[in-house]
């Protein structure tokens, strides 16, 4: 069958594993071959990966950019080779892209802020656990979260903002440290579920009860929400993204004309909460 390339920013994260699985399933159903490459969160490796996919003559290129700007030259190279490009999860800031399939991280950050604001009735102290400094996910989620608080919910203040690099173990130890310094914490927002679950572990060990809001809705996190351990997580639907991307690619292979302007295909974002819990 036809070959489609998928360049992922990382597979070291359940979110992208789910995205890959969604894509693989869709590919199997459509009877095409999907070549998946993992850039290990490195912009330069992604460029090399895409170049290799072009050498491999893939029919459509699916890209989950490690960084929006950095991926542009590689996309341009694909354009030159006449390979249509679809971006997933994160947009590219240039080049010719047929479709962009994503949920909006800034919107997700706002969603989390809104939830916490309502939970605290507009007054309280929150801790923000940031992702790897300089990554777009950390940037966008933080931006949405803080912008919402500033505009709509000035009574809720961020009393500690520390990075835990999207990592569960660091989420644990950074939260332990913050718990030493902050007597009053009313809620925690983590830029991803890994950090949220780490923080949760620290909070449990300290014997306190603090609502934690994560991001990504990984299976572990959803389980924690169901068990009333975590307050909420912002659900993206990575498997859906993967599925949409492959379906669009199949359409292009079957002869559909690529839109002249990049067409945005939103994947719904939702807040996973558990109304039975008492926060």
């Amino acid at each position, binding site marked *: 069958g036809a070959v489609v390339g998928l360049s992922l920013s990382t*597979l070291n994260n359940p979110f992208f*594993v789910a995205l890959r699985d969604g894509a693989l399933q869709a590919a199997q159903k459509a009877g095409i071959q999907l070549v998946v490459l993992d850039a290990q969160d490195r912009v330069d490796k992604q460029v090399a990966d895409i170049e290799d996919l072009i050498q491999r003559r893939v029919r459509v290129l699916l890209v989950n950019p490690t960084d929006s700007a950095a991926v542009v030259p590689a996309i341009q190279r694909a354009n030159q080779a006449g390979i249509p490009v679809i971006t997933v999860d994160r947009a590219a800031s240039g080049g010719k892209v047929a479709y962009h399939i994503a949920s909006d991280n800034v919107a997700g950050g706002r969603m989390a802020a809104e939830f916490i604001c309502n939970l605290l009735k507009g007054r309280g102290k929150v801790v923000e656990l940031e992702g790897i*400094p300089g990554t777009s996910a950390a940037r966008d989620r933080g931006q949405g979260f803080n912008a919402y608080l500033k505009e709509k919910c000035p009574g809720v203040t961020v009393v*500690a903002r*520390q990075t835990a690099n999207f990592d*569960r173990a660091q989420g644990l130890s950074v939260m*332990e*440290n913050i718990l030493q310094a902050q007597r009053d914490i009313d809620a925690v927002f983590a830029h991803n579920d890994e950090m949220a679950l780490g923080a949760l*572990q620290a909070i449990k060990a300290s014997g306190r009860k603090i609502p934690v809001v994560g991001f990504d809705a990984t299976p572990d996190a959803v389980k924690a929400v169901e068990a009333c351990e975590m307050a909420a997580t912002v659900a993206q639907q990575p498997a859906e993204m993967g599925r949409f991307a492959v379906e669009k690619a199949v359409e292009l292979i079957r002869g559909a004309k690529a839109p002249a302007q990049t067409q945005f295909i939103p994947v719904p974002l939702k807040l996973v909460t558990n109304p039975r819990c008492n926060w």
Partner: protein
Amino acid sequence: MLWARLRPEFLARYGLVWALGILVLVLSLLSPYFLTPSNLLNILRQVSINAILALGMTVVILKGGIDLSVGSLLALAGAMAAGLAIAGLSPVLAMGLGIGVAIALGVLQGLLVAYAGLPPFIVTLAGLTAFRGLTLVYTDGRPITGLPEPFLFLGNGTVLGMPVPVMAMLLFLLLTHFLLRYTAWGRYLYAIGGNEEAARLSGVPVAPIKVFAYAYSGLAAGLAALVLTGRLNSAQPTAGTGFELDAIAAAVVGGTSLAGGRGTAWGTFLGALIIGVLNNGMNLLNVSAFYQLIAKGVVIVLALLVDRLVRRR
């Protein structure tokens, strides 16, 4: 007894004790939360994993090698132990097998270094890569959760008020100290690191001892894996990424020479403490992420300069 040891020569030799002292003093002044019993215990608990890895690393570095694979070994050992336990094996057996896998892969790397004569850096870098791959294959890139009680106890339990991870670290510190200071094999490690040729001519069984060093580092990785798995209440396929640099840093800050032949278990422990105190202090002071990086680099260099100055006198 203890007091008698605090003579000037002792303090001069351990310039790092000064560096740590200054750091603690400054942090106590800056943050009221720092010098509290609960925070000190907290620091020890956080330091435990890096300290255990760094002690294993010290053994390898002493003999003139290096082990970059510890982070990946940790992930693999944790995943194996957790996976087997979930699959129904008795938790203790599963833990033992996890550690066993780490030791076995340490031995494998040791064989490649000692008998095939490959450079330790490359062998263990290949290990870093390949073992991570194995972990991802084994877990299919997903965390393993729902672990039975004994795991949680290892990570979060206490014995006589002391957290189990701290206990494990202290025991491993004593074991390593004993190995290095009182046993023939410990001495051989120093000899090989100091002058491999002279050691060989003295009848030191060089190759087996090299293999042992990597096996010991594997043991450390396995032990650290159990502690981390317990602390996180799950085995993460990405656990331990970058831990190798932290472990080497602790050893080297603690006075271990990367050229081999020089270093102690206590020095490494001190090195791990300095790094741990620094991380904790900056969190307590809520230093922003970007500036934390700068501060961390600067403080570590300053600590070593203090060490130099004290020792030079």
